[in-house]
Each structure stands twice: as C-alpha cells, then as structure tokens.
C-alpha cells in the first residue's frame, strides 16, 4: 500500500475529516455562506441608495430622524415577535395587546375622561397587564396544546374587545405631559421614543445572546424534543417568551399613546402584518431557530425606508401595495439562506 496514504491515514485525527465533509456537501464556498447574514443589511443599503438617488432629501438628517421615529413602535413590536418566531411559534395578538396597552395607559394617566393621574406608575401597570395577556396566550398554547397561531388569534379578538369595552368605543386623550414627552421631547435630535426603542433593542440583544432563556429560545426553535431531553423547561421558557412579547407590545402601546396623544381600540390596527414581515425580511426563519433581534432591526428599517420612500418618490397610492409587495419579495429572496432551510413552507 502506498506510503503516502499510510501517513495520511495514520496522522489524521478526528478534526481533519470532521471539517472536510460540510464543505463538500454544501458545495458552496464558505465565504459566500459567511456573507449570507449580511444580506438584509445589503438590501437595506441598496434600497436607501435607490431612494436617495431619486430624491436626495432622503439623506437629510431630518428625514433620518423621521424614519427613526416612524420605526420606533414597529421595532418594539417586532422585538417581541422575533423571540416568538425563533421559538418556531407565531404571535398574532400584536394589535389586540397593543390596543389594550394604549387604552389602559390613557385611562390611568392624566386624561380627559376620568380623574386618574398615575403617570409612570400607570404606564408600568398597563405594561404589566399586557405582559399578563401575553402570559395567558403562552399558557393557552402550552397547556391546551393549541397552536400558537390559533391561541394568539383568539387573544387578538379578546384584546380588541377589552379595549373597546374599556372605552365604550370612544377615544381618550392623553394629557400627561411626561407620557407625551416620550414623543415630543428630543434628546440629541431624536425623540425619546426612538431612544426607548433602541434601548429595548439593546436589552433584547443582551437577553438573546447572554441569558440562559435567550439561548433556550434558540434550542427550542432548533429542536424542541432535543431541548426537552437536555432538561430545558420548554413550557416555562415558552410562557416566559410570550409574556415578554406581551410586555413589549405593551411598551409599544405606551409609545403609541404618547405619539398620537390618545388611546382607542383601533390604535393598533394594521400593525400585525408589518411586524411579521419585518421579522422575516430581517432574515429570521418562520420555521424557528434562525435569526435574531439584530436581523429584525434591519428588517424594520427596510420596511420603514420603503414606506418613507413611497411618499418621497410620490408613488401613486393605487400601486403602493403592489410595489411594496414586490420589493419585499426581492428583499427576502436576497436575505434568506436557502441552503440552510431545506424545506420552505
């Protein structure tokens, strides 16, 4: 037998063959796969340049601020949704919970319909209530073994119902200046709401990267049965995540109430699909286990820039939906790693 082979086989530890196979199997240069995660970011840059080229005002600092301002609430919502989606579940209750949050806040802080004036305490209470609702979704999902899709769909209706019930349909005006300051006071040129959203992002990122539950979310999304075998309290983690999501929707409710200066049962309408789309465009897989809050951050910006661009370029309202739809397809086509998801549903 030729000595060449002999030496090769004798000194080949586990490591040599170990890393040999995937390169062959995936048949794609690693460098390319390494670049994948940045695809959404590239999409964002390209999109921005496109809009900027057609209307230079896009790059004006004021516009950047406005985009940031319009992205703040969607970002907070999308953060909550991201964790749920990484679990492999989905949360449709966004609009309902957000409405409850906004309505409860506007009723607890100084307003024009009752004598309450709890200020920040009121805000905290409202967020707590929303967390409770999220927790309820989670419990229904894991305890009754109902798909999150359905459980949260139900909770969506319940949420809007509660908000309507609480106000008897009317709109309440928020008079509390502290709450309003979130939208009206600026720090380094950006409204406080933007900073709130960014800090939420920061915390969410730390939560995702450096806490046990954060890592368990990925474990469950990657393989729930294996997660169970590794002694991970899957059910508890799920409930925690849905609760967290609820809390974030509540926070978004606070920001909405501050931004629009009012609370009403329809304040969240139209937010859901935006939220999920942003998460997916950012590159998180609906099948779970992949992606993260930074992806979502990019995703939200893509959608926000898109909306801003539509107006800046004066695209006819008739075709806006169509244009948006096509651009989203393109963005996703660029950003998802098809090699990794063998099956696309």
């Amino acid at each position, binding site marked *: 037998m030729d000595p060449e082979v002999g030496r090769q086989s004798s000194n080949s530890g586990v490591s040599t063959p170990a890393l040999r196979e995937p390169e062959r199997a995936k048949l794609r240069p690693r460098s390319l796969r390494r670049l994948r995660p940045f695809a959404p970011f590239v999409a964002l840059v390209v999109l921005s340049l496109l809009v900027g080229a057609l*209307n230079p005002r*896009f790059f004006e600092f004021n516009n950047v601020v406005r985009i940031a301002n319009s992205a703040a609430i969607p970002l907070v919502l999308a953060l909550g949704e991201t964790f749920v989606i990484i679990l492999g579940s989905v949360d449709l209750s966004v609009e309902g919970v957000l409405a409850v949050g906004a309505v409860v806040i506007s009723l607890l802080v100084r307003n024009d319909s009752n004598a309450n004036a709890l200020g920040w305490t009121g805000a905290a209470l409202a967020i707590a209530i929303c967390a409770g609702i999220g927790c309820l979704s989670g419990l229904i999902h894991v*305890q009754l073994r109902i798909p999150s899709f359905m459980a949260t769909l139900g909770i969506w209706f319940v949420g809007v119902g509660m908000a309507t019930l609480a106000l008897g349909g009317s709109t309440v005006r928020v008079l509390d200046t502290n709450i309003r300051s979130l*939208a009206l006071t600026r720090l380094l040129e950006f*409204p406080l709401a933007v900073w709130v959203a960014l800090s939420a992002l920061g915390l969410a990122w730390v939560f995702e990267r450096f806490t046990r539950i954060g890592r368990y979310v990925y474990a469950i999304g990657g393989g729930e049965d294996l997660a169970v075998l590794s002694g991970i309290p899957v059910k508890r983690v799920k409930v925690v995540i849905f609760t967290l999501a609820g809390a974030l929707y509540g926070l978004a409710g606070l920001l909405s109430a501050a931004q629009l*200066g009012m609370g009403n*049962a*329809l304040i969240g309408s139209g937010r859901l699909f935006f939220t999920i789309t942003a998460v997916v465009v950012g590159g998180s897989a609906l099948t779970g286990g992949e992606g993260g809050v930074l992806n979502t951050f990019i995703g939200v910006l893509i959608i926000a820039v898109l909306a801003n661009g539509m107006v*800046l370029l004066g695209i006819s309202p008739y075709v806006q939906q169509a244009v948006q739809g096509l651009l989203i397809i393109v963005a996703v086509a660029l950003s998802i790693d098809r090699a990794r998801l063998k099956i696309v549903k």
Partner: protein
Amino acid sequence: MNDFTYPIPRRTFIRRAAVLAGSGALASMLPYRVYAADKVTLVNSIRSLSNPYHATWNQGGQAFANAIGADYVTLVTEGDSEKGIADIRAVLAKTGGNLVLNVDPNDSPDARPIVEACVKAGAYVVTQWNKPADLHPWDFNPYYVAHISFDGVRYGEETANALIKAIGGSGGIVALGGILSNTPAIERKAGLQKALDANPNVKLLDLQVANWKSSEAFNIVGSWLTRFGDQMKGIWAANDDMGTGALEALRAENLAGKIPITGIDGIKLAVEAVRAGEFAATVSWDPYWQGSMGLAIPYAAKTGKFESVKEPKSHREFYGTGSLVTKENADEFYKTHIESAPKIDFDDLWGRVTGQIRE
C-alpha cells in the same frame, strides 16, 4: 422508538373534559334577554363601536329608545359586510320582523340585500351614507322609508375652503384620503378638487391614502415634511382621525398650529383642536342625530305618523345638515354637542333636510 410519539390518551381526555366544562361555564355567562315579539325593537347597525363617531351614534340610538321605551339592539359589522348582513337577518328572524332598522352599511353594495331582507320581513328601514345609486326607497314602499346621506362634495369643499382661507389663499397643500374605494372618501376628495379649481394659486402637492387611520397619517406627514419642507402650507384630511394623526406628527416637529389642518366628522379631539387653533376646521354630522333620528323616522312610519308613500322624494333620499366647526363657533359647539348630549326634537323629522340627493 415510538415510545415518544403518543401523548397518553387518558391525560388528553381529562384535559379535553376540563375544556368542555370551561365552555359550559362560558355558556352560563351569556346574558339572557327576552324580546317580546309584540314589542317593537329598535336596531342600529354600524361599522364598529371602537371609533368615537359610531360610539356617539349608538348613544343617540339609546336615547331615542329610552324616550319611547322600546328594546334597543346594536349590531356591528367590524368591517365585514357578510357578518353585518347575517346579523341583521338574525335579528329579523328573532323578532319576526317587528323592528325598525337604522343602518350604516359597511359598503354601499350591502344596502340592497339588507333592504330586501327587511322588506321580506316587513321591517321598516332607513339607510345612511352608503347605498348603490340605483337602489331607491320609493321602489320598496312602504318599508324602505328613507336614505340619509351627507353631501361629501359640499363639505369636502367647505373644509378645503376653510383651509385655503387659513393659509392665506395661496400656497401648496397636501391631502390625506380615506380608503380609496369608499364613497365618502371619493366625494370628499371631489369637494377638495372643486375648491382647488376655484383657487388656482393653491396647489395640491400630493395626495396619500392613510385608510382613515391616525397612525398611518402620522408617518405619511413625517415623510411629507421631508419631501416638501416649508412648501407644505396646510393639510386637508378626509376625516378627523387622520387629521389628528397629522396634528401629532406636526406636534412632534414643533409645527402644531403653524401648519393648519382640516378634518371631517366633528369628533371631540378635532373640535378641541379647532378651539386650540391647531385645526382650521372640521365638519360635524352630529352622529347623535344620525343614531336617534335614523330610528325616529322609520318608527314614525311604522306607527303611522306618516305614510312613506305620500312623502316627496326629497324626504326619501335626502342630505342631512352638517355643521362646519371653525374657530368662531367652536366653543359654542363644544358646549352643546361635546360636553352635553345635544337636544334633539324627535318629532321634527324633516328639520335637517338640505335637499334631495343628486344622482
């Protein structure tokens, strides 16, 4: 290795039993009302109770019901035409047709099936806002008593003029439209157009659709500020919700009050904004009147106070009176309509007729 694959049935069943029990409990919660078929039922069918406009509408209906001591039911479509119609059919079936209906159809097409259902059941009906052009009360005597609408073109024009006045007669303005295919959206836009034609030195910079929503209006106005900067002298909104959204977007840039806004509907927030000088104007339909008088008229017909057949067409398809709320009359209006429920004479059936609806 299929040890894993089966949830032990017993457990599942216990759970399911629990759930069933739960649903039972839910059922027992259901309020149980009895409608005597010999007593007339008053029904208001509206889009949803989640918006102030229809909430006030509902109060009006309640008020009239109390006034004559009849049962009162509210139906909401939640924007789903089929649901709206199904619900109406349900109450018709339940009351054996002994009811009067005041309906704001979710979409103009809905009016026909609704009217036909009422005629079939012998219930008296008034439609408001939406109906197909070729559907006429006088074709369904006596049950289809009347159709009430408000001249979107006229009031769209009036608010536009108020806005133009506020910006000093010249400059660029932008417009926030409602859901493109909604009749009011179309009419009000047409009114705006008329005003613009009359004022050549006012330019419409852009029209965007915010689907009647304040949150969408908020973002659009932000982008407009970038695109038009200070060319944008005023904002015309097809309803107050979008108007208030626009106002908050301006407030966030310390422009509240500097760029005048007009809305339509006359909701509380808008009227307050007018008083504060942030809105140039809004138009109030007085939904309280719509909710009450929309019942009073068919009730009168049912109880024989008048015969619909004998009424002139101008009483069968008419425009109600909207009132333009501006700085001048805002405080007054606020006292009479916002702070206190408006006083309405339920016998003055035709008091607010401002002409027959044009084809």
